[in-house]
C-alpha cells in the first residue's frame, strides 16, 4: 500500500504492484506490450516509458520502463507532461510497425487488437517507413490455432506463457535479431492443453482462433455474456461470443478469482459442439420432425395415460434444472436421479462430502507440497495448470496414477521418484501406509515432504478413484492437520450440485426400476446414459420401454434412441447456476438466442404444479442461501450437510490385468461433438508398461497389437508402450471401454494379435486442416 505520483496526480498502489500496474489501476493509459500480469515484466518492448522527477539536487530526470519498476511510496513520474517519454513510446511503436503488415482490415484480431489500440494511443498515425517489409513463413498449427507470422512484434508473451507459465516444451522462439519466429519444430497441433491461451496473450493477430476465423464476426458485433465453462468441475469464467444465433468463439473472462486470465483448450473449443451439424434443433416425435413449441410437446409427452415415469437429470445441467426435475419427478410420483452410473454417483458423493476445505486454484498455486492421485490433466485441466505453478517454483509435487498423464511426465522430469504408478485398487492401501508412516518419529520419503509442508494440498480425481481411496486421501489431509487441504476433480461441471439433489443410490434404483419393468417411460434431460459407464445396462433397459423422452443439445446415443427428442439450450444459450468442485456457487448468463426455438432449461419449471414450484424455491434457498451470485462474480462457497451415500461393491484385486482409463484433456461428453477439438482425439491404443508386458510373457514393440478380451467381448488395438501405465493395468480410452462394454477395474485377458505393417502410420488428422483457399489474411503474402 502506498502512493506514488504520476504527472502530480496521486496514484494508490497495492503490494507487489509495479509502476505500470499502479498506473493502469488509476486508469492512466500507459502503453505496454511485453508486460502481462500473469507473465510478469521483462522490459523488452520499451513502450511503457515514463520520466522520473528528480528528488535531489543535481539528479537528472531519467526515462524508465515502468513495468520493471517496483512501486514505492513517494515515487514521482512524468508521463503526459514529459517531453521525452511519449516520444520513446511512439518511436518504438513506429519501429514495430516497420515490420508489421498494414493488414488490419482483414485481420481477425481487429477490435481486440492491443497493438492497434497502442499504435493509435501513442499517436503513431502516419507510417514514414517506405522500405520493403520482411515477410515470415506462417506455420500450420493444427485445427485450433492459426498463425500469421508477419504480424509478430516479438514481445515474447506467447513463449513466456507456453514455456514458462504452462511448462510446455513443443513451442519456442526460433532465430535471432530481426529474424525471430515463434513456432514449433514440426508443423501440427500443440501438445499442451493450454495452447489456446497464446491467442489470448498475443497482443497482435499473430496467433488467432482458427475455429472463430471460419465463422468470423467483428468482435464488437458479438453478443457476449459472463458465463461459466460447462466442460469440467473447475468452473472457469468464460465469455462466449455469438452472432446471428450461433456461437462464434469463447474466451476467458478475466478478473475472476477462479481461473484468472486463462482457460484450457477444452473450455475454449468444446462449446463449438453447439454448432455441430447433427445437433438436434427441432422437436422430433417418433422420428418425425414437428413444428410445435418444445414445451407443449414435452407437456403432451408427459401426459400420456399409460406411462409410469422415471426422471433423469444430469451433472452437466445446472442446479435449478436438476431441482425442477426432482420436483417434477415427485409430481409424477417417479424415481429421480442426476447420475447415469451408480459407481460414479457413489464416488462423486463421497468426494463432495469430503470437499469442504477444497483448495481454490490460487491455494493450489501457493501450496508448498502437492499430492495428486489420478490423472489430473485429463480430468480438470486448469486445476492441473495450478499444480504446474507450484511445480515450477520447485515445490515438491507427488503423483500416484495408473495411466499416462501429461502431469506425470512433468513430475517425473523434476524428480523421477515422485510420480508412482499403481493399480487404483491399491491406492487406498498406499495412502493408508502414508498415514501410518506420518505418525512415526522419522517419517521419510513422501511422508516427510507432507509432514514438513506448511500448506500441503491433496488432489484426487473422483471418477477414477475407488471410494476407499477417496476416503483415505481425505483422512490423510485430516491427519496432516488444519493447514492441509483436500479437493477432488469431479466428473462434470455441476457434479457437486447434482450430488445435492439426488437420493442415496438414486441411479441404481432407477436402473433397477427400469429393469424390473416398474417404470415404462423415462424423461432424460442433458444426460447420455447409453454412452456412459453403464451404457450396456441402460441400452438393454431402455430398449424395453415405450416412452423415452430426451431433452438435449447433442446428438447422443440416447437422443438417437429416443421416442421424443426435445432440443435444449447449451450453457451459452440460457441462464443457470453451477456448483464447482469447491462447492462454489456460480451463475452464468445467456449470451444469445438461437434462431430456431430450443427449450431453455429454465422453462421446465412451467411443467410443475404450484406446490412443486414453491418447493423448488425453498430448496434453492436452503441450498444456496438467500443471495444468488450474479453472473461474472466469483460466487460464494456452500458447506452442505453430509450426503447419505449407500453401499456399492467395487472392483477388487484380481490376478489378470485390470482395465484403467486412458483419458485425454480434450475429452468430455459434449466436447466429443465439437468437430475441431474432437479431431485431435488420440488414436485408440492399449497402453501397457514394457516391464509388465514382459512379466506377462508378451514381446511387444511399437508395431505390436493386442487383443483384449473381457466378458465375451473382444477388441484388437495397437500397443502403446508406456512406463506411465501401472503394473497390473492396461489403459484404454473411453471409446474402447464402451466397445468392450467394460467397467473401470475389469479384469481382462490379453493375447498377441497380428502386427501392424511396418508402413509409417497414417498422417495425423492435422493434415485435413490446410488453410482455406483464397485465404488472404496475411495481406496476400503467403509463405
Amino acid at each position, binding site marked *: 500500500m502506498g502512493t506514488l505520483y504520476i504527472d502530480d496526480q496521486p496514484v494508490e498502489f497495492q503490494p507487489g504492484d509495479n509502476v505500470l500496474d499502479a498506473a493502469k489501476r488509476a486508469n492512466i493509459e500507459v502503453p505496454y506490450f511485453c508486460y502481462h500480469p500473469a507473465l510478469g515484466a521483462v522490459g523488452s518492448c520499451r513502450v511503457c516509458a515514463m520520466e522520473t522527477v528528480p528528488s535531489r539536487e543535481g539528479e537528472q530526470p531519467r526515462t524508465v520502463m515502468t513495468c520493471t519498476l517496483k512501486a514505492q511510496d513517494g515515487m514521482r513520474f512524468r508521463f503526459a507532461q514529459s517531453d521525452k517519454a511519449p516520444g520513446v513510446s511512439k518511436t518504438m511503436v513506429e519501429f514495430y510497425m516497420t515490420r508489421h503488415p498494414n493488414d488490419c482490415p482483414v485481420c481477425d484480431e481487429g477490435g481486440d487488437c492491443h497493438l492497434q489500440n497502442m499504435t493509435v494511443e501513442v499517436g503513431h498515425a502516419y507510417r514514414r517507413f517506405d522500405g520493403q517489409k520482411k515477410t515470415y513463413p506462417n506455420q500450420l498449427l493444427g485445427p485450433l490455432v492459426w498463425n500469421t507470422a508477419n504480424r509478430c512484434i516479438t514481445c515474447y508473451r506467447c513463449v513466456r506463457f507456453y514455456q514458462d507459465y504452462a511448462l510446455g516444451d513443443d513451442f*519456442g522462439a*526460433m532465430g*535471432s535479431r530481426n529474424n525471430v519466429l515463434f513456432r514449433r*519444430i*514440426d508443423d501440427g497441433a500443440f501438445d499442451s492443453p493450454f495452447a489456446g491461451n497464446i491467442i489470448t496473450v498475443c497482443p497482435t493477430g499473430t496467433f488467432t482462433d482458427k475455429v472463430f476465423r471460419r465463422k468470423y464476426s467483428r468482435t464488437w458485433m458479438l453478443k457476449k455474456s459472463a458465463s461459466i465453462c460447462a466442460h469440467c468441475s473447475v468452473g472457469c469464467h468464460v465469455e462466449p461470443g455469438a452472432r446471428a444465433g450461433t456461437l462464434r468463439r469463447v474466451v476467458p473472462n478475466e478478473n475472476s478469482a477462479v481461473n484468472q486470465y486463462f482457460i484450457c483448450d477444452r473450455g475454449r473449443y468444446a462449446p463449438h459442439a453447439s454448432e455441430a451439424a447433427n445437433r438436434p434443433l427441432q422437436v422430433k416425435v417418433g422420428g418425425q420432425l414437428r413444428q410445435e413449441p418444445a414445451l407443449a410437446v414435452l407437456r403432451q409427452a408427459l401426459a400420456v395415460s399409460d406411462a409410469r415415469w422415471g426422471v433423469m437429470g444430469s451433472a452437466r445441467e445446472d442446479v435449478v434444472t436438476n431441482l425442477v426435475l426432482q420436483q417434477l419427478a415427485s409430481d409424477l410420483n417417479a424415481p429421480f436421479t442426476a447420475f447415469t452410473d451408480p459407481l460414479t454417483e457413489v464416488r462423486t458423493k463421497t468426494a463432495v462430502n469430503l470437499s469442504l476445505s477444497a483448495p481454490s486454484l490460487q491455494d493450489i498455486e501457493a501450496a508448498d507440497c502437492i499430492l495428486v492421485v489420478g490423472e489430473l490433466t485429463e480430468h480438470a485441466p486448469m486445476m492441473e495448470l495450478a499444480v504446474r505453478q507450484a511445480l515450477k517454483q520447485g515445490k515438491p509435487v507427488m503423483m500416484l496414477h495408473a495411466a499416462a498423464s501429461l502431469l506425470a511426465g512433468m513430475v517425473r522430469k523434476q524428480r523421477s521418484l515422485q510420480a508412482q504408478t499403481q493399480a487404483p485398487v491399491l491406492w487406498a492401501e498406499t495412502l493408508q501406509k502414508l498415514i501410518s508412516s506420518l505418525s512415526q518419529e522419522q517419517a521419510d520419503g513422501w511422508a516427510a515432504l507432507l509432514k514438513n509442508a506448511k500448506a500441503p494440498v491433496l488432489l484426487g480425481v473422483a471418477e477414477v478413484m475407488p471410494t476407499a481411496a477417496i476416503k483415505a486421501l481425505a483422512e490423510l489431509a485430516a491427519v496432516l492437520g488444519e493447514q492441509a487441504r483436500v479437493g477432488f476433480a469431479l466428473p462434470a461441471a455441476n457434479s457437486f450440485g447434482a450430488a445435492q439433489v439426488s437420493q442415496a443410490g438414486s441411479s441404481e434404483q432407477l436402473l433397477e426400476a427400469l429393469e424390473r419393468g416398474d417404470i415404462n417411460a423415462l424423461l432424460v434431460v442433458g444426460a447420455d446414459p447409453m454412452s456412459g459407464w453403464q451404457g450396456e445396462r441402460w441400452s438393454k433397459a431402455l430398449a424395453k420401454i415405450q416412452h423415452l423422452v430426451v431433452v438435449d443439445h447433442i446428438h447422443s446415443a440416447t437422443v438417437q434412441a429416443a421416442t421424443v427428442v426435445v432440443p435444449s439450450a447449451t450453457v451459452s444459450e440460457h441462464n443457470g447456476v453451477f456448483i464447482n468442485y469447491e462447492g462454489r456457487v456460480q451463475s452464468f448468463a445467456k449470451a444469445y438466442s438461437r434462431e430456431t426455438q430450443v427449450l431453455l432449461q429454465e422453462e421446465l419449471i412451467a411443467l410443475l404444479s404450484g406446490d412443486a414450484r414453491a418447493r423448488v424455491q425453498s430448496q434453492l434457498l436452503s441450498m444456496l442461501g438467500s443471495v444468488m451470485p450474479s453472473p461474472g462474480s466469483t460466487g460464494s462457497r456452500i458447506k452442505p450437510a453430509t450426503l447419505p451415500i449407500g453401499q456399492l461393491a467395487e472392483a477388487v484385486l484380481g490376478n489378470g490385468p485390470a482395465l484403467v482409463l486412458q483419458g485425454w484433456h480434450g475429452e468430455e461428453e459434449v466436447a466429443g461433438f465439437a468437430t475441431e477439438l474432437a479431431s485431435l482425439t488420440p488414436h485408440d491404443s492399449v497402453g501397457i508398461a514394457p516391464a509388465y508386458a514382459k512379466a506377462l510373457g508378451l514381446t511387444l514393440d511399437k508395431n505390436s497389437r493386442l487383443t483384449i478380451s473381457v466378458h465375451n467381448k473382444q477388441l484388437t488395438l495397437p500397443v502403446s508402450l508406456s512406463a506411465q501405465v501401472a503394473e497390473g493395468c492396461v489403459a484404454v480410452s473411453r471409446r474402447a471401454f464402451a466397445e468392450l462394454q467394460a467397467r473401470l477395474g475389469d479384469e481382462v485377458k490379453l493375447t498377441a494379435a497380428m502386427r501392424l505393417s511396418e508402413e509409417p502410420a497414417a498422417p495425423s488428422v492435422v493434415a485435413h486442416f490446410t488453410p482455406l483457399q483464397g485465404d488472404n489474411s496475411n495481406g496476400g503474402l503467403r509463405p
Partner: protein
Amino acid sequence: MSLTEHEIEHLREHIEHYPEKRAGAIYCLYYVQDKYGYIPRASLDEVSELTDLSPTQLDELITFYTLLRRRPVGRRLIRICDSISCYTRGSEQVLAAAKEASGVEFGQISKDGAVTVLPSICLGLCDRAPAGLVDDSEDLGELTPEKIRDLICSYAAETLDSKSGGGQQILAVLKDQQ
C-alpha cells in the same frame, strides 16, 4: 539416421565434464553437424536425451547461432559478410555474383552439390572487407565479384572425393529434393 553406441558414449563422457548436462548441448550439436553436414530432426531427439534440453530448446539454440544449421548444405559452404564494413566495400555485388554463380538462392545447394552461399553477419575480418569464410575455417578477403565467381567455379570442378565426407550424401539429399 542415428548415432552409434560408440558416438553416444563419447558424447556422454564429454557431457560429464560439465556441472550441468545442458552445457554440453553445443558440443553435441556440432558433433552431429560434423557427422551429417547439418542437424537432422531425429538428432534433436537424440541430443535431447543426452542433455535434458527439450528438442524445442535445442532448435532455439540452433536457430540462434548462425554456425549451426538444420538444413543440408553443399560440399562447400561459403559465407559472405553483409555487415557494415563489407557493405561499404561492395559486398552486395559480391553476394549477387555468388548467387548467380551458384545458380540457386542463398541457402540452397547448387545443382551439382558443390556449394551453398549464405550472407553472414560480421565475420571479424573487417580489415579485409569485403570478407567471406569457407567451411567455417578458410577466410577470404578483398573479395570481388570476379574472385568469388572463380572460386565457385573451382569448387564445381572438384571431384566428389577430393573433400572427405559429404559428397555422396549431398547428392542423395539433392535427389530427394527433386
